């Protein structure tokens, strides 16, 4: 379970997040939507302990990220880009992560196989395409076989095959009881993957509910999204 409680983030005089709250529950894929600059990445970064909240809390199974006993086995995270040094090989990158968590090198080979990067694992990350970098980030997130996945724009830059893989994979993870929180701006992909939707605009939550609740009377998630995030849009759903 992921719980965001009244989260506020200031950067200089600018308020990035204005007291947002929502939950991502086990067994469900929660889509976190919003226009660029709405505060999606800031929320995920605070949740993962990368940025500090000005006030409020972001908890993972009731604890802040830094208090998790075994972070890699609890939360798998993939943010923008590969998260790897471009001069290191994909395999070497995954191996240092595995070593830090006490996982064997055989697990590295397993996740490389899962994301389809086995053949490219000996190449330097700098030679990877955008999609391969995403797959490497996903492989790192899966290393500890975590109960929770937090993914920032997981399908952005992937080819149709990659998008289909992620969609199927995330659905399977959720159906086996895991928690999945993903941010995206690709409505079509999201509508086929998520159970719950949270929409953020200018650092405030403007919609939070099941996919059906958020779509409401609109013809699609995309319609609902634009209705809720256009400058004239008003109250929370």
């Amino acid at each position, binding site marked *: 379970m992921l719980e965001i409680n009244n989260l506020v983030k200031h950067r200089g005089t600018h308020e990035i997040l204005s007291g947002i709250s929502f939950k991502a529950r086990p067994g469900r894929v929660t889509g976190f939507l919003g226009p660029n600059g709405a505060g999606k990445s800031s929320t995920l*970064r605070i949740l*993962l*302990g*990368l*940025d*500090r909240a000005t006030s409020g809390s972001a908890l993972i199974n009731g604890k802040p*990220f*830094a*208090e*998790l*006993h075994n*972070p*890699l086995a609890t*939360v798998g*995270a993939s*943010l*923008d*880009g*590969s*998260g*790897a*040094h*471009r*001069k*290191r*090989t994909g395999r*070497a*990158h995954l*191996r*240092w*992560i595995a*070593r*830090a*968590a*006490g996982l064997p090198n055989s697990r590295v080979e397993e996740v490389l196989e899962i994301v389809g990067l086995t053949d490219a694992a000996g190449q330097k*990350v700098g030679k990877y395409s955008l999609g391969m970098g995403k797959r490497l980030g996903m492989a*790192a997130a899966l290393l500890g076989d975590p109960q929770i996945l937090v993914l920032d724009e997981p399908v952005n830059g992937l080819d149709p095959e990659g998008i289909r893989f992620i969609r199927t994979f995330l659905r399977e993870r959720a159906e086996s009881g895991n928690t999945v929180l993903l941010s995206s701006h690709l409505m079509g992909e999201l509508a086929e993957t998520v159970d719950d939707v949270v929409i953020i605009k200018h650092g405030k939550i403007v919609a939070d509910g099941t996919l059906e609740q958020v779509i409401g009377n609109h013809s699609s998630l995309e319609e609902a999204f634009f209705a809720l995030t256009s400058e004239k849009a008003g109250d929370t759903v």
Partner: protein
Amino acid sequence: MRVPSSKKITLILGAELGKLITLPLTWLTLIGTFILNLFLAAAFTSVGLQETAGTQSILNIGLASMGYLQAGFIILGILAACSEYTGGQIRTTLTTVPWRGLQLSLKHLALAIVTIPAAFIIAASGVFYTFIRMRDTATGLEIDTMLAAIAGATGYLTLTTLLSAAMGALIRRTTPALVILLGYYFVVSPLTRDLLPGLKRYLPDTAGSYMYMPLSSEEVNVLTALQGTGILMLWTLLFIIVASIFYRRRDA
């Protein structure tokens, strides 16, 4: 914050070592420094061959390249710290090991583990080269003095590397960190030595140089090797502590 167990500490140290040794730039820097040092040792020895050789002159000539050689170790320290900020690796590091103070300390320890043997080999190679070239004219060689000077040089280079890594962690970007540190070591410090000679005893590089420099009877107010070690160690610790405070408080 939960304090990780000793097993976890060993695992994190292993991961930090893994990061360092799988970074090609680490090896390029060390090999480049080794080769450059041998060239410098050859040049200084050619000049020195005209003098009478003894333990002190072999050490003076063999370690004469230290001033230039330290640049390689400054680069190594900065690369170790700033490589975290390439490709967003810092996010992976902190989502794998969110205990920031501990992680940064273990990164410095891993860097010391890699640096100590490398610094010893590089410093000793310069002295050994000079010894080989000058052995025919050398008289009364004192092995203990030579080993102490090489150990001192190893300590100096290791502490300088750690100080540079702390500076890298503070600044987070390779080029500005290089400009600041190389600017200090190769411009500001030499100028200060001439303009404010009294400061020589307190600056990290000049005080640290007494760790390996043979004592000269002509100089007044010199430091012992132990005092030099203490002052450089204090500077290094100070930078690591400041870097650690910022590292723990700042957004990654």
